[in-house]
């Protein structure tokens, strides 16, 4: 009993008082958001949900022309159908999620106190399948992106609202994700932040680099270069390979932590998924 109390006290202490010099998630979020608001004056917070199109008028008009009849329409319909199709045992995806899985995307990823893990939406879609006697879907694209895309679409207009609970394990996930974001990787020795924070709005060859603020609102996205929908972690893998680093495992701890940090940083911006990107 005494030991348990000490542990509880230590946990509270750790959670309540971050190490000296270390910013709290709240402080990080404010600084992160302020950075972009200052870098792109006049762009309202919610516009960052449109990625590079918030800051590049030429690309935006071409994007808007494509969104007139979006190329992901078919996959979105398929996702809705799959979502509502019962498993062999008669249950559906709705049985695994709060509110039947409708309008919940803005809370993903979240810290699950029971398992001590950060859970992404795609991860829980597959956990739901396994729980109901089905095989997990292959990650990143295809049916999983279609289902996730449909679920995300039911949250459109709802602001991202990721919580970092006062739990040292949750903070550890957050810190791990933050470290991923700022860690230089690959032969080009570049971090996520080098392109999408330090150089957001600058060009790499002909391409305008998108701000990291707001990225997670519109995933899964249909990238014209993919020709289909893909998850945020598929994009992480692609980004890492572009700086000539090996991509981490899909839904592994590295990318889940990164998604946790990255989405938390975009809190307050409305979900607007799926969307089309170049």
């Amino acid at each position, binding site marked *: 009993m005494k030991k348990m109390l000490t542990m509880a006290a230590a946990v509270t202490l750790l959670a309540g008082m971050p190490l000296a010099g270390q910013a709290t998630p709240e402080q990080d979020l404010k600084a992160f958001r302020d950075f972009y608001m200052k870098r792109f004056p006049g762009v309202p917070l919610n516009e960052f949900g449109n990625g590079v199109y918030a800051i590049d008028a030429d690309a935006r008009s*071409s994007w808007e*022309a494509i969104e007139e009849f979006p190329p992901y329409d078919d996959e979105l319909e398929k996702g809705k159908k799959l979502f509502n199709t019962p498993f062999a045992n008669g249950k559906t995806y709705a049985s695994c999620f709060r509110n039947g899985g409708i309008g919940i995307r803005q809370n993903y990823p979240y810290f699950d106190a029971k398992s001590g893990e950060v859970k992404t939406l795609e991860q829980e879609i597959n956990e739901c399948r396994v729980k109901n006697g089905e095989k997990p879907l292959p990650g990143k694209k295809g049916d999983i992106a279609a289902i996730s895309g449909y679920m995300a679409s039911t949250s459109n207009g709802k602001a991202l609202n990721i919580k970092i609970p006062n739990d040292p394990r949750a903070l550890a996930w957050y810190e791990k994700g933050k470290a991923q974001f700022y860690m230089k990787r690959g032969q080009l020795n570049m971090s996520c932040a080098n392109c999408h924070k330090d150089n957001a709005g600058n060009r*790499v060859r*002909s391409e305008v680099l998108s701000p990291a603020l707001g990225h997670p609102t519109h995933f899964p996205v249909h*990238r014209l270069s993919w020709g289909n929908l893909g998850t945020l972690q598929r994009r992480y893998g692609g980004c890492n390979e572009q700086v000539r680093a090996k991509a981490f495992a899909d839904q592994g701890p590295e990318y889940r932590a990164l998604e946790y940090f990255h989405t938390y940083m975009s809190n307050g911006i409305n979900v607007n998924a799926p969307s089309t990107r*170049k």
Partner: protein
Amino acid sequence: MKRRVFLKGTLASSAVAVAVGAGLLNPRQVLAAWPKSAFEAKSMQEALNGAFGSELTEPTDAIQIKAPDIAENGAVVPVTVSTNLTNLESISILADGNPTPLAANFMLAANTAGSVSTRIKMGKTSNVVAVVKSGGKLYSARKEVKVTIGGCGG
């Protein structure tokens, strides 16, 4: 003999035009009219000659092309061609840097507006050229679109 062939040709093409105008043709029949020589032409001149029997077009401000300065992706370049010319017969879209420049030819009925939007492939940086046939004359406009091979975009 030559004259007879000529007459036959004229009759045949006008019959197609009348039937299409009246909405009597199904696509299977119209397919026969697909101008192979125009679409397979490797140069702008050949393509225009194949499509219209002439390569001479008059540049005009009465045609507007909406296309990006820099293509997001060369495989999907949104293009809108609008015109305030009247007596419209057709709007054609070409990309002068493509292996076969002619992309699309739209034939408009009298009650159809002078504006079409579509998405085209562009192999490299070049001009999107719009050719409008109006009152039997050919008019054109162009806009450069830069195409690069890239990977970013979140």
